[in-house]
């Protein structure tokens, strides 16, 4: 009698175990939250490497202008600075043979957005190379607009009471996108 009870108990355990482990478990569900943090990014994209060609100056009062367009992809506010040293002033020191003269060199930037409704900044006006956006030009980022088109204009001219020496004039302007302060 005692043995029969043990056998029945064992059989019961086996059935329960089979029910427990052999049953269809049904669908399992799991949730997965994917998070990505995007840091502050600045990306220059240029019609590489578009320099500014200027036509020949053929008269004393004959300023020549040119421009080049660049795209700045940003997801934060940035400041644009320029080179205000003599490296950004047109001179003929690289000419063959080297000269010692300079041209009046002026720049301004134009943005395709104003920073209010679209990413951009306030357009500047012509300024000599040493004053061109010398305090930086603020570019304000607007949500869902990740790019601003920047047009750099340049103007070369003779001094008002002078005609520059004949020759080839060159210079290098450097635009730097930088962080802004709080």
């Amino acid at each position: 009698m005692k043995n029969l009870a043990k056998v029945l108990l064992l059989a019961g355990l086996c059935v329960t175990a089979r029910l427990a482990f052999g049953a269809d478990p049904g669908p399992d569900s799991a949730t997965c939250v994917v998070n990505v943090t995007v840091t502050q990014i600045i990306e220059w994209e240029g019609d590489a490497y578009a320099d500014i060609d200027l036509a020949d100056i053929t008269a004393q009062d004959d300023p020549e202008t040119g421009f080049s367009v660049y795209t700045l992809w940003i997801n934060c506010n940035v400041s644009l600075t320029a080179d205000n040293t003599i490296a950004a002033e047109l001179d003929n020191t690289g000419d063959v043979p080297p000269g010692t003269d300079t041209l009046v060199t002026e720049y301004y930037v134009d943005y395709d957005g104003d920073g209010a409704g679209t990413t951009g900044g306030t357009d500047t006006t012509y300024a000599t190379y040493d004053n061109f956006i010398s305090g930086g030009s603020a570019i304000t980022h607007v949500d869902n607009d990740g790019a601003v088109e920047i047009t750099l204009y340049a103007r070369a001219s003779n001094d008002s009471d002078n005609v520059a020496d004949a020759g080839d004039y060159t210079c290098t302007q450097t635009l730097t996108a930088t962080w802004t302060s709080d």
Partner: protein
Amino acid sequence: MKRNSTVVNRIGAGFVALFFFILPANVLAGVAVSPIQQWVKVKPGRNAYFSIHVGNNKRGPETRPCPVKVEVLDFAVSAQGGLSFGPEHKHRRSAVEWISFSDSEMVLEPGESKEIKFKVSAPVDADGDYWAAVMVGLGSSKKLQNGIQVNLQTASGVFVHVARRNYIERGSVIDANVILPEFDMADNLTEKNAWEQVSKDIQKEQVLKVNAELKNDGLVAFLARGKAYLYSEGWHRIATVPLHSSRRRIFPGHTRRFTGTMTQPLPAGRYKLRVFFASDSKYERKITRDMELLVSDDLAHQWAENFIDDDTKTLEVKPQKISLSLNPGRFTTARFQVANRGLSTVATRCRIEADGVKEGWLELKSPDFTLAPNMQRSAICSVRVPKDAQPGKYNAVIHVEMERSGLTAQNRRNTEQYEIPVCIVVDAPDMYTVSK
């Protein structure tokens, strides 16, 4: 072995140089840099590490390989807040010589990105804040025969804090002055219909202007905010002028110019003006400087006659509402633009009022700022939805409180308040079913 590696390096540099030279014109290339500023903490005599990511995003089939040049440079900040880069701006708190890295020149293929690792080795006697910039330049074309060669580059600021102890911020006002408005009789605006014809430049001259230069005399950088208070002779405050600078963070040894403007006319008389600065930190110290000014009868008369109150609705705030649909655990940012359309400087304070949104979900970065005339700024609100957030709709309000410069007497209202409702809809997380 060392000689071999030198030869390999030289050959590599030669290829990069050749690439710079032969890259054809009119091809699209670019370089993305991230982050654009970072703070590195290091103990004296120890090392710390940071990295910068550069990449050439493939934006289409026309994207070409991009030569990239990386340098660590000194930079100077002018009193106006302009940045200048280069070895000629070396200073006594330069971190340039502490920072080492490899891979200063490379060519990034379309779609390729790279992490550049930097090591900062602080000397044992270093103390306080030091700084440098990592300059990432796009390769430039061959030298022009004539015209202007344009180089494009991105500067990433690296601010190194060598912590030896708690630092007290120290500053002093090294210069302050007041410029009273100028009225040329030829530009007299007594006829109101002449207003449209008057250029903005003339209007800008017809304001009271306060200039102050603040110097950081301590060992650590601080974020400064300033105001000028105008008092009658009996020290009764009659006007407030918020002061603005394009860069509020002032590094040790640097000076920064702050400017404030007020359009509202002052009656004739003698006035005292106190320039007041404080910093954002808990160790803030107030820095002041007093001066006096006189408004003559003639000037007061002209000022009052020419004054046209166009500052009634100074601020523009966009968007009117922020709506976000987010999953639990999501971290994102939302921006809103604040623009000052007036001729007076404006101090702006933003704060969040929770209306269903739990504490810690929303945070404003730099909630206090000042806007110069005709200036705008985008403010950032970071949004962090907890992982255990229940699906539903949560609300909050961003209050934008603006105080423009002007007379505080005569019951004038120099403050404006705006509200930006924020609505966050937390979605139920997507369910992914795994069947056996």
